[in-house]
């Protein structure tokens, strides 16, 4: 922690202070001229040493939230605390300007000042906070070393590649050792290969520094792979929050189900249900295929109701048909098209009683087009829905 950062405080309980780096309480934000709030009643905590991701489609309010933490937007209502210190309390008209907050931020465009060298860019936050000269020098060198740009000090901003610019942006954001680092879609301007590298790089960096990160992205792969926790937003409202596995395996509503990962929707009928929301579902078009899933709907779904079963593509195994009827636990289909995409083969399969779906098969066991197949679903762990609502249709 730098001298500029507000750390130890007399009023807060030390225990809480160590845990929560940033907390947001009841934030509302409506842009002038817009009728819908960009953020509605948002509350969340970012713990020290945690990567918390705000995930959602464009316009869902995630960037607005990040900018309110940075101090670049004023919330209409709600409070923001850094540890125990209040930086925004709308009821008391209290607003700490961004330059006083000591957060690090990496912009989507990186915002590397083109009229400065790499070293000048990184030194800027230190100069603004009046660090002594020799300490600035040390810290800049350390920060550039951290991101692997030692030796680039005198390079001009515009002469850097996209990946290098991003690393300068990280060095500049980290050089004051802020308590929280804000990342606004930092990988979206990189090509696919570099993006993968940088993702690993950021994860390692974060482990080393044990810093809290608030990370904004619309890319679910980035969110799933980087985050300790994900907050999935839509229309300014939190849809679900939890660790990546929870969002993927137990989506709480249709939006979460469709936004995180791919979901195949099978039509079926509820055979039986229990109080915990577990359902036995018979698939349409397969007389002998019953699988288990659960519903998160508070009222559950009654027996006999028509439902959609949410199945992740990797939970379906494609077997070549050996003639005759599909065996128990499988559903029949016909391969319409097989697309070799490298690491796997994608099959467009017309499934009996269900319609056409895109499924993934192994590269080593190709199945010719027009052949019959049997699809074996994992017996349980699916989700059940009373509608096929999809946010993509909106």
């Amino acid at each position: 922690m730098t001298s500029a950062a507000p750390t130890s405080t007399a009023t807060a309980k030390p225990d809480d202070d160590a845990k929560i780096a940033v907390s947001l309480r009841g934030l509302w934000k409506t842009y002038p001229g817009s009728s819908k709030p960009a953020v509605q009643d948002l509350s969340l905590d970012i713990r020290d040493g945690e990567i918390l991701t705000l995930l959602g489609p464009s316009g869902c309010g995630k960037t607005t939230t990040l900018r309110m933490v940075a101090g670049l937007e004023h919330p209409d209502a709600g409070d923001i605390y850094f540890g125990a210190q209040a930086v925004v309390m709308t009821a008391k008209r209290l607003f700490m300007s961004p330059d006083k907050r000591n957060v690090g931020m990496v912009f989507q465009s990186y915002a590397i000042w083109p009229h400065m060298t790499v070293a000048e860019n990184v030194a800027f936050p230190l100069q603004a906070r009046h660090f002594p000269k020799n300490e600035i020098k040390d810290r800049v060198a350390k920060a550039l070393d951290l991101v692997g740009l030692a030796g680039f000090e005198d390079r001009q901003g515009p002469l850097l590649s996209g990946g290098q610019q991003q690393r300068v942006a990280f060095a500049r954001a980290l050089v004051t050792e802020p308590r929280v680092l804000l990342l606004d879609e930092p990988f979206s301007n990189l090509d696919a290969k570099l993006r993968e590298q940088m993702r690993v790089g950021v994860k390692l960096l974060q482990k080393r520094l044990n810093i809290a990160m608030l990370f904004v992205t619309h890319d679910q792969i980035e969110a799933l792979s980087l985050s300790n926790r994900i907050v999935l937003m839509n229309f300014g409202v939190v849809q679900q929050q939890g660790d990546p596995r929870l969002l993927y395996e137990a989506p709480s509503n249709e939006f979460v189900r469709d936004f995180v990962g791919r979901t195949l929707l099978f039509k079926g009928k509820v055979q039986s249900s229990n109080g915990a929301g577990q359902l036995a579902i018979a698939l349409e078009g397969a007389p002998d295929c019953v699988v288990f899933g659960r519903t998160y709907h508070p009222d559950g779904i009654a027996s006999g109701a028509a439902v959609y079963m949410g199945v992740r593509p990797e939970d379906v195994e494609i077997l070549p048909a050996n003639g005759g009827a599909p065996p128990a636990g499988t559903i029949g289909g016909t391969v319409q098209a097989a697309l070799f995409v490298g690491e796997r083969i994608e099959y467009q399969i017309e499934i009996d009683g269900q319609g056409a779906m895109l499924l993934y098969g192994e590269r080593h066991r190709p199945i010719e087009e027009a052949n019959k197949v049997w699809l074996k679903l994992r017996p349980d762990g699916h989700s059940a829905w009373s509608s096929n609502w999809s946010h993509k249709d909106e």
Partner: protein
Amino acid sequence: MEQSPTITPLSVPITISPPRLSRGHFLMAMVLIVLGYLLLWPVLLLLINSFNAANDWFVEPRRFGIDHWVNAFQRPGLIQSLGNSLLIWSLTVGISFPIGVAIAWLLARTKIPCSRTLEFLFWVSYMVPSLPTTIAWITLLDPDIGMINVGLKNLFGLDQGPFNIFSVPGIVWANLMGHGISIKVMLMTPAFRNMDSTLEEAARVGGASNLRTLFKVTLPLMVSPMIMVFALQLLRVFQSFETEYLLGVPFGFYVYSTKVYALVRNAIPNYGEATVLASITLLMIVLIIPLQRWILERRRYTTITGSFRPGLIDLGKGNYLAFALLAVFLTLLTFGPMVILILGSFMQRIGYFVLGFTLEHWRLVLSDPVFVKALRTTLTLALTAALVSPLIFSVLAYILVRTRLPGRGALDLMIWGSGAIPGILAGLGLLWVFIGTPGLNALFGTIWALIIVVVLQGKTTGVNIMKGVLVQVGADMEEAARVSGAGWIRTYFKIWLPLLMPTLVLVAVMNFVTASGATSSIILLASRDTMTLSLMALELSSNAVGNREAASIVSIFIIFFTVSGALLVRYFGRRFGVHHDMRAGPSAAI
């Protein structure tokens, strides 16, 4: 998710900001009041004063009535001057438009040699004010002493020169040679260049011949920028002054602007009818502006393209023919007049080659205290405009682009709309503001009155250029600095100023050029003490004085300032990639 701990706010480094945007609101109110007072109020004052029926406004008390309106409509030639404005404008546009389109097409879409240089030279010819060009054409086409007329008389033994610049065709000719053609080339060439060549290529691949592609794809695509340029030209109908003043007044031909001037500068000033004429003109402008805006807005997105690989047409030998043709045009537009002015300045008596050459005129002009003073006044005006306007325009652009302050729409409209007010009317309105405001009336006749005019003159173009750059630079440059711990002042000096400097310089030079050539906007506000080079040249070459040799010399100075400014603009524009935006507003077409 766990409950938040009970948290108490610390008081240490936090500033509790008073009602947040109050400083911003205050600034906005100030801007609207000051600009409204200088841009909007003068115009309204013209309308109001036209109903002041007092005969002598300085002596009699204000009395409202429509006497002046009645008189104005009865006075022969007054309303007709508006018709004359339209006549000159229609003839000029009618002839220059097809020529401009053809030249722009040659420059942008064919493999003509040195097309960039040729385009730049057309641009230079646009930067040269029309006053010096007109003076040069008088030198050539005066019926008695014009060099061409004298030459033809001697050659064919004619009694009278065949050409007369003091005629309607003469005025149209001078307008064409002044800005008429060059402005259309300047506005249309970049638009034609940026046309997406893949559209043409798609037509070719689709089986259309070269000719078919031209008629079915290229020409329809060109129509859009052509309409835009035409819309921008609509307001030019009321802009011109100098040419009509020098060429029309001698044979009793008045357009509305020279009429206004004549009424005000009469031995007994007829302010009443001048304001009536001004009001009618303003009403016409008010009708034209929405039409113009509608055309520009509607067409805005049709020419946008990301492709910068225009498919160029090879004219074969025609390339060189076209080059030669454009060289002739440029000679007529710029270089011819320049050479003539230089030549004329050394002649004993313009048009009389037999009398030989002399340095006497130069000696007289350079030692004339009036000239020295005018030179100093012009430089003061131009340098002040260059220094002050970029600062003001950048603040205005910042307010418009970066803030969410209320009143931005009004501010934008004011900047846009006032760009459409012709210089002579703005000057007349300001005259009344200065005279009518206690405290400000001391400014009348001083250089400060002129400084206000020239500083604000380039506002529409200047603000629009700054707006474009602010959008381009992006808010995140500034936000990154704020998040990095920099306050407003550090952000301004360390981030904004260095990033915007090239554009500020560009706007500064452009304002230097307009200020050094300003004529109609300041002519009613200037006094003997605050005469500029333009006003001096205008007076010297008018029939009343008729010292054309001296007028040539003063014109050479005006050309020198404007052309060197143009070269600087090009240097900065090239170096920093700042481009002109043809949608910059009506004053871009002034």
